[in-house]
């Protein structure tokens, strides 16, 4: 992966929340590079600071020390080149499905006709074209997350940050959306930073999996997932990655309960 240019550089990032000055910081001296077009999964026990890290890369919160560089320039706040997909979807409830997907292009001043075409294309991509005129309240969780993914893609960001995007979905819907994301990534080639606590999901989607330690979050180990682009969850190679990472994560979870 080191051949591709670096898209995101997380350099010595530490985050302490002022309120828990006494307790340990959420993230300490975190270093990580994400290459262009790479799908990188950050995996860790809950409370290890992985969402904090994503919020820092998104520019929603500032690190206590350290910097995040995107294309070599420091991140100072949220920006259109870093799309975000949240666990709770966070659709705009007053807009239709199409209105949500058109939101980014609308902000960029794209003409109405072209906005509609862009929205139609991405709704087609996530299989929601027939639901364009519905409002978010009328959709299931899986459909809402498809809209959120289409909304992020329609804005054409170079980077997509995904914060446990499928965590609130049932197991079946979850796998369907993993398949879709894998298929979309083969077409769109975004740089994706994907937070999850599902090992299976990480092995299925990622080019690299970063396993974090329990709080404060540091990198425990990085796995290069050398599996074909189109993956099968039941091959021996797949389950080998799965069990190796599982052992590693269990060690960390055990530490939390000590």
């Amino acid at each position: 992966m080191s051949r591709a240019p670096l898209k995101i550089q997380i350099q010595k990032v530490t985050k302490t929340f002022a309120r828990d000055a006494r307790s340990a910081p959420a993230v300490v001296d975190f270093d990580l590079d994400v290459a262009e077009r790479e799908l990188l999964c950050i995996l860790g026990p809950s409370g290890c600071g992985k969402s904090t890290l994503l919020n820092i890369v998104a520019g929603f919160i500032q690190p206590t020390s350290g910097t995040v560089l995107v294309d070599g320039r420091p991140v100072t706040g949220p920006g259109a080149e870093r799309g975000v997909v949240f666990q709770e979807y966070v659709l705009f409830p007053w807009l239709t499905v199409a209105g949500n997907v058109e939101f980014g292009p609308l902000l960029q001043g794209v003409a109405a006709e072209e906005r509609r075409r862009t929205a139609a294309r991405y709704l087609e991509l996530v299989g929601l074209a027939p639901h364009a005129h519905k409002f978010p309240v009328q959709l299931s969780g899986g459909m809402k997350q498809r809209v959120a993914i289409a909304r992020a893609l329609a804005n054409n960001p170079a980077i997509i940050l995904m914060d446990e995007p499928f965590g609130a979905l049932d197991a079946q819907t979850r796998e369907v959306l993993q398949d879709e994301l894998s298929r979309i990534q083969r077409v769109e080639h975004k740089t994706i930073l994907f937070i999850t606590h599902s090992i299976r999901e990480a092995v299925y989607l990622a080019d690299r999996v970063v396993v974090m330690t329990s709080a404060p979050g540091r990198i425990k180990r990085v796995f290069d997932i050398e599996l074909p682009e189109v993956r099968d969850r039941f091959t021996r190679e797949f389950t080998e990655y799965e069990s190796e990472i599982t052992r590693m994560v269990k060690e960390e979870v055990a530490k939390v309960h000590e």
Partner: protein
Amino acid sequence: MTRALAVLAALLVWAAFTYVNARAEFVNPVLLPTPLQVAQVGWATARSGELVWHVATSLGRVAEGFGMAAVAAVALGLLAGLCVPIRHMLEPVIEFIRPIPPLAFLPMFLVWFGLGEASKIAFIGYTTFFPMFIAVAASVLRVDVMLLRAAASLGASRADLIRRVVLPAAMPGIIVALRVGFGLALFVIVGAEFMGADAGLGHFIMEGRTFFNPAQIVMGALLLGALGSLMNALLVAAERRVLRGGAR
């Protein structure tokens, strides 16, 4: 349908009660007007054009006072909701003034603005401003930070955030604020018109007292009830239109 039946039932109870009393005279029948007597007052005053005049006068005052207060409350409420220093400046003052019953200030408004239209309009404006202002500011403060984050990561500027996220997200709260304010305006106009008015429903009711005509008092009260429910129904319909998506 059930609602129509409920109204009819209430009317029947009223009729039964007053007609029995008219025969048995538990209390002086003049004090408990029958539906027919009230309808007669209504018919007579409607024919002379008097009733329309009173209703129009009251509604005009409500529209002016409420209208001005609504514009001010929405503008300042948005400002206070968005801007922390302004909120910190306004909050203590408003928290002190708010619990004072507005009617306590009615004599002050008469002293300041005289017996004419200005005092009534200003009084309605004063009464309705505070609850609307507080509700608007609160609905801005309640806007989910995640919605702002989602918009910002799609490239929204601060102006975009206010126009395309804060305003639509706060809209349900703003509409409720306006409904509450309007109901309150109808509530206090009567009090304002009790003192030194020559027209309006409050004056109409007071006239019923002066000339000892309880049927006129009841007629005035019924009209206020009808106006209130009508306005509320209109505002609810408007709310449904604005919030097509069933936001939230």
